[in-house]
């Protein structure tokens, strides 16, 4: 009986040791993954800030003005002028192309309540 207890204890020690060993390596691997991901995020952020700076640089008003001048033939872009403001009444809204209802048919203007329903004033 006692030998069995010893055996079981010994086996559990071995088992726990093995478990701790694997857990340790799994943790280390997870930490490595986190570190790698953090580095990747940092790289991506870095790239993002460069792209943002480049976007701002390429969209600087001087350059856009030059480009719109160069491509005037195709785009015809002009600075915003006061004359370009309009009123909503100046917009020619096309009539909606709806089928007109049959205006000759009679229309019921009174009805009956369904059975069992009380009239509520």
């Amino acid at each position: 009986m006692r030998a069995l207890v010893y055996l079981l204890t010994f086996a559990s020690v071995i088992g726990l040791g093995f478990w701790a060993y694997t857990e340790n390596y799994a943790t280390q691997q997870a930490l490595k993954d986190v570190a790698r991901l953090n580095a990747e995020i940092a790289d991506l952020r870095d790239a993002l800030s460069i792209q943002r700076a480049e976007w701002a640089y390429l969209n600087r008003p001087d350059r856009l003005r030059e480009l719109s001048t160069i491509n005037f033939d195709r785009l015809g872009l002009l600075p915003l002028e006061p004359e370009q403001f309009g009123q909503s009444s100046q917009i020619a809204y096309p009539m909606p192309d709806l089928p007109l209802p049959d205006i000759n048919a009679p229309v019921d203007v009174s009805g009956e309540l369904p059975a069992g329903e009380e009239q509520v004033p």
Partner: protein
Amino acid sequence: MTARTPLRPLARILSARAAGENPDHIERENLRARHEAIREKTRHRAELRLLFLGLAFFVSFTVIGARMGLLAASEPMEPRSAAPGAQILAQRADITDRNGRVLATNLMTHALYAQPRDMVDPRKVARELVAIFPDLKEEELYRRFTDGRSFLWIKKKLSPEQMQKVHEIGDPGLLFGPREMRLYPNGRLAAHILGGSSFGAEGVHSAEVIGTAGLEKFLDARLRDPAQAGEPLALSIDLTVQAAVTEVLDTGMKMMNAKGAAAIMMDVRTGEIISLVSLPDFDPNDRPNPLVKGDPADSPLFNRAVQGVYELGSTFKIFAVAQALELGLVNPESMVDANAPMVWGKYRIKEFQNKNYGPLLSVSDVIAKSSNVGTAHIALMVGGLRQQAFLKSLGFFEPTPIELVEARSSKPLVPAKWPDIVTITASYGHGISASPMHLATAYATIANGGMAVQPTLLRRSGPPEGTRMLSERVARQSVAMLRGVVEHGTASYAQVPGYAIAGKTGTADKPNRAGGYYKDKVINTFASMFPANDPRYVLIVTLDEPVDTSSTEPRRTAGYTAVPVAAEVVRRTAPLLGLRPEIELPAVDGVTAVSQNQ
């Protein structure tokens, strides 16, 4: 266990009995030997246990001690399992305009340094570096490589192409350190607002970026605050408007042959500066060095809008008139004495080109025609003390609170004493000097219905609390008078179709070094607000030494120089600001809408 020896071995007992000895002796003897053996064994076991225990204690104390020593000696470190969130790399916050367009950001680049001890061939390195960077001197570089120092900086910022070329030299003594560089992607645009930056304390692995001028220096602490590094600083500037104003002002400056120009556009309700331009400007990415001799105002670094303290001339007239209205001394239709020239002691107050608008002129026309004499009489009615107090409350005695370091050092020039002659000259803007920013703030007070506003370069969420300087009625009357200046006064070129501008021209002679005034050098200012029926924006345009040469004789008054430029600025920017022009509707023919579904 060995076989136990019996206590009374039969053989010995029998022989002892035969010899007549007491056999008990044998038994005692054997018992003693046995006890001794047992004791010996126990002692041995106890010793072993002690040894084991000692060993265990020794090992555990060694382990604990070593661990403690290790912990004490090593750098403290965050536990790694608490994985740190993605760190923000930027050490200096971005600056954006009011719509989030980037005005200043950071870029990773590299600095080049050398460790001459590791250098294989200093002569070759010096030669090849000069081939990449023509501004370096080969002999100088070689001398510094070989004079025994162990470390030297070669270049603070490298482009990727330059870095690749330096790599290709392939000398182990040339090393790169990462650098975060400040980048102003819009170049010259808003240069005077942003100022510039440079490196502070430098290490191999990083360097501090510090602001050297403008907003970058004024808000250095905020921009470097690690807690707010990820949060861009939003300015009140509108990049599109700023670009349009810069373009128009630059063209206007060249057409009017001016040597400098400045423009400020300000939201009168919040005090936000929508646009601030000073020309000539510079590239903050490559900030020029300040002038070591001559007039600092000739340097492109000089911010005319904030640092330029000028006599702003007739633009001041509205303050005297507004105060007189506020005090109930006059109303817009009152007639005042405008008989020129006016003699006060030994001084003669004259009108422009020695005209005479007198003998009597209505207060509205004093502003519209810009009568010095009329304003002088109104100012004398107000009195020097009250005038001084009013100008002080409008901020003309202190530097503006704008977020630029340059503003702090540009205190307006006000006379120390305030005799009546100062009251007279100050009423039409002579003898008192202020920056265009001061003027913009004071005009914003009138445009904002008499409520004072604080100018700011930072985006505000709503109108701030202001103190009332003028009653709403007086503010409205003042704006109407300024509208009169455009409709039938000195600023008739400010008639922009669709946008009603109200404003006042100002022409001031430039003071020379000798204490007098130049004959043909003037500063022209047009202080305006639009739209006149409900002012939203104040626009100040200042031209330095302009001259309009489009007619037969050169014209130097603001009405011919600053006003057309300001009008064009309004025409270009008002649509960008989302202001609808007031369109004169075509005649309605026949049908009238009586209701609208809106």
